[in-house]
């Protein structure tokens, strides 16, 4: 049984009270967070207040909603009213939103117990969580390795058993990569399936909120709950197919695509793990289809050009005037804005703003931004053609397992290259789930991705669940930290 369902059962049958459960988690956070650095803020009072409300409901014999009373966390770029939200940047230190992100409004209405806000790369720009102003989150499987990024804190917390599930955001792999590094399930929904209202923007046409959980079932429960149409987000569509109800369906006859380009430059042991998974799928009655998507070779530069262009515009709002950090010494307004931004942003954020400004500037716009937009269209078209040949695509999530600490000290382009398998999905706005598929020789988790056509979260989660059911004992490792269920 999934953790969410198990805890829901324990609460409903009064085997544990919600306050007891919440206290258990808070106690373990106090202990484990010193090492993991998963949480940047713990909201114990609010958590216990919600828990009391849930206990009252239980004592009155009222039925519980699926996520009611379940202790969870949010990445620190998801706005929470009256709770500091910093994007792990100095420039937003002390910023307290005056409204809730829609996803949190939905979960709050279900009495989800928010334990705190979790660590991330500054403004979600990074692949190791190490560009965080508060220092990086560590990998619960081996603390000499990073949890991944940018939603590293959520993955570290869920993997370290100090949250049942969490919501992250994925602009170029930021949910799937840390999920892969920490042996978890991470779902990046279709662009538009989950409302972005209240998600502090990095690159608006790529960003999506989604769950990181310890099983496919949990990810599906959370996805179904949060994928609602929202009039506050102009690009919102809501989900078209609910995922949870179809998890147990047979995948006999399902066509699974293997795209050659996804396996170039991938470490051999990871390649082998995914080939193993393909065999499992064949045993389950799925049919493997092999083909190429040559357009994928442009995915990385297209992603970095467009995402940074959008970031340079989105991050223009941080001027020190209305909220967040403001420099103390300045001559005039312009000086104040420049100094505030230079002192408030970290190095990687500045680099991406500069790249974005460059590709949008006069003389370079056509060669970079416009060309990249056209290639984005070509990549989208190529994926649409691919889904005429297959139902889902099976691919690695990351070319390696979790990086050793101080990864971001390396040169920027080397870091960008590790996003090779995750960015295509964001370019085309498709849904993809990363699930564990084994361990490397050091015992670090390996992840694989199932990619679907737009709004077909049901298909990828169905395929993920079927694989998980027959491999669970070799893809998950129970860690002896945090709350043990």
């Amino acid at each position: 049984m999934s953790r969410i369902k198990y805890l829901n059962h324990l609460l409903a049958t009064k085997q544990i009270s919600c306050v007891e459960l919440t206290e258990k988690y808070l106690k373990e956070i106090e202990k484990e967070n010193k090492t993991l650095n998963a949480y940047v803020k713990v909201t114990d009072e609010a958590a216990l207040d919600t828990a009391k409300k849930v206990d009252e409901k239980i004592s009155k014999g009222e039925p519980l909603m699926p996520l009611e009373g379940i202790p969870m966390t949010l990445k620190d770029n998801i706005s929470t009213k009256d709770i500091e939200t910093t994007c792990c940047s100095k420039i937003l230190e002390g910023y307290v939103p005056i409204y809730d992100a829609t996803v949190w409004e939905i979960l709050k209405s279900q009495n989800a117990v928010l334990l705190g806000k979790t660590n991330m790369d500054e403004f979600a720009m990074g692949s190791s969580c190490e560009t965080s102003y508060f220092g990086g989150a560590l990998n619960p499987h081996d603390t000499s390795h990073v949890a991944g990024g940018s939603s590293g804190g959520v993955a570290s917390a869920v993997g370290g058993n100090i949250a049942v599930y969490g919501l992250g955001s994925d602009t170029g792999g930021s949910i799937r990569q840390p999920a892969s590094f920490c042996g978890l399930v991470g779902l990046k929904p279709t662009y538009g399936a989950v409302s972005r209202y209240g998600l502090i923007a990095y690159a608006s046409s790529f960003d999506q909120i989604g769950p990181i959980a310890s099983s496919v079932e949990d990810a599906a429960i959370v996805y179904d709950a949060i994928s609602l149409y929202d009039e506050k987000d102009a690009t919102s569509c809501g989900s078209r197919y609910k995922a949870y109800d179809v998890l147990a369906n047979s995948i006999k006859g399902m066509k699974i695509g293997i795209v050659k380009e996804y396996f170039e430059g991938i470490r051999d042991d990871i390649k082998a793990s995914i080939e193993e998974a393909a065999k499992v799928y064949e045993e389950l009655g799925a049919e493997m289809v092999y083909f190429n998507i040559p357009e994928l070779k442009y995915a990385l530069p297209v992603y970095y050009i467009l995402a940074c262009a959008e970031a340079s515009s989105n991050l223009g709002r941080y001027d020190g005037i209305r909220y967040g950090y403001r420099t103390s010494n300045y001559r005039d307004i312009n000086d104040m804005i420049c100094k505030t931004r230079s002192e408030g942003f970290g190095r990687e954020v500045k680099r991406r703003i500069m790249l974005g400004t460059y590709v949008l500037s006069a003389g370079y716009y056509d060669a970079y931004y416009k060309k990249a937009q056209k290639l984005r269209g070509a990549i989208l078209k190529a994926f649409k053609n691919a889904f005429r040949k297959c139902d889902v695509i099976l691919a690695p999530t990351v070319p390696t397992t979790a990086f050793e600490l101080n990864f971001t000290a390396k040169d920027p382009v080397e870091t960008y290259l590790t996003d090779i398998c995750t960015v295509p999905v964001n370019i085309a706005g498709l849904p993809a789930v990363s699930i564990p598929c084994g361990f490397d020789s050091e015992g670090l988790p390996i992840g694989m991705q199932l990619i679907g056509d737009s709004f077909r979260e049901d298909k990828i989660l169905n395929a993920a669940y079927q694989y998980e059911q027959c491999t669970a004992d070799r893809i998950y490792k129970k860690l002896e930290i945090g709350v043990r269920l």
Partner: protein
Amino acid sequence: MVTRDDVLKIAKLAKLSVEDEEIDALTKDMIEIIEFANAINNAVEDAELEDFDDINSVVNAFHEDEVVESFDRELILKNRDGGEDGYFLVKNRLTR
């Protein structure tokens, strides 16, 4: 190739002030990053590509032009120590 002057120009456009000791490292990073971005210019000719519009072909999401409740001015100013007389306060720009 990106030069030191380019970096200073971009920084000015991006409203970032770059310290002298940062310029060389930043120029080196930018050269590398732009070179990486240049991969797309070896791609197919522009003419062979169609314009890209929107991921989900969503058309404008209009709603009725009705006045709805908005945020309280005081609430908005809370993140800047309450502001002054209902405004955000910055240093004088003009002197009398």
